[in-house]
């Protein structure tokens, strides 16, 4: 009987693999952006995205196609994120304008913004860093909720599903999360407009 199962599985596996590779191509940038906003730095964002895709691949047979893949992936990513924080109490937090060490010495993150001129770009980068730093200070459950609502544009119902909670909790986490952000960003309010 194990053989029957193995045969059935083998047929499904090639099909799944092709489909999954296409999903990686399609969603990896979006997933990386969300992972970056959760983790606050590139190294952890890469780890988080990679681990989420690997876990998703392992359980791909159980993915219900009627659900959107990104919601399912984010559900997994949220779990990976929380798991890692539990194992590593002090998450690395690095500002995006802090230099990173590469093989060729120090380097800055380059984030192109073709819409803005050089001065606007500097100001915009600074503000991005401040907002990211404020996000990093939120308790992780609040941070995830704010990110899913305001970056990904998920409905409360989608956030509840993605973070395995109920809509009331989503509502409360969002409200409290935004109030915490406000207290961190109060002095920059004029520049946020």
């Amino acid at each position, binding site marked *: 009987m194990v053989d029957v*199962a193995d045969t059935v599985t083998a047929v499904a596996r090639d099909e799944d693999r092709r489909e999954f590779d296409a999903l990686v191509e399609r969603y990896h940038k979006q997933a990386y952006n969300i992972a970056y906003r959760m983790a606050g730095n590139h190294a952890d964002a890469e780890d988080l995205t990679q681990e989420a895709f690997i876990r998703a691949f392992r359980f791909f047979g159980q993915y219900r196609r009627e659900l959107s893949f990104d919601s399912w992936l984010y559900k997994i990513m949220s*779990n990976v994120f929380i798991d890692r924080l539990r194992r590593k109490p002090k998450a690395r937090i690095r500002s995006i304008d802090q230099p990173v060490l590469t093989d060729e010495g120090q380097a800055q993150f380059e984030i192109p913004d073709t819409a803005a001129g050089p001065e606007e770009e500097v100001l915009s980068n600074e503000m991005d860093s401040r907002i990211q730093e404020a996000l990093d200070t939120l308790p992780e459950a609040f941070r995830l909720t704010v990110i899913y609502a*305001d970056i990904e544009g998920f409905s409360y119902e989608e956030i509840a599903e993605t*973070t395995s909670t109920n809509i009331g909790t989503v509502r409360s986490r969002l409200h409290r999360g935004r109030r915490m952000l406000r207290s961190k960003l109060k002095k920059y309010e004029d520049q946020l407009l």
Partner: protein
Amino acid sequence: MSAYVDAELTGAEMLEIRRHLAGCRECANEHESIRLMKHAVSRLRTVAPREDFAHFIIARLDEVRIPGYQRVLNSVAVLVHKKLSPVAAALAASGLALVVLSAGGMDDVAQEVNSAVAGSSLVARAGEINMIPGSNISLRPQALEIADTMSYGREPVVQWTSLGR
């Protein structure tokens, strides 16, 4: 107020709050600051990964070894999902039981599943797998029951119940 900013209230509630905001300065200020925070986060620019990141992930997938019991679980889910023969699904599921039982205990399996996610879909589906009348295969729905591993802010909840009984 956040629910109002996100338009997550009923039409009547939205109207009621809108009317209130028109006459209450304190709440209007609160509304404005919450709206501003939503705007601040949503305006964050998209951060791109390195160019070869998708290929890197795909290459890593080649190294992923899916444990036997997990492959069987996945195939059961696929069969049930595609509404193929319930007999085949039951056979595959009983294969799972054998794999698990031959593993010599539940601890390793529970440990593996503990790191898993997305198991919840199978809970409902296990109930759809029909028994085979007159055969020795007596798969009970609870034999495949896996609690949703997506706990949030608590220890993961993973339970295998009645397996092999």
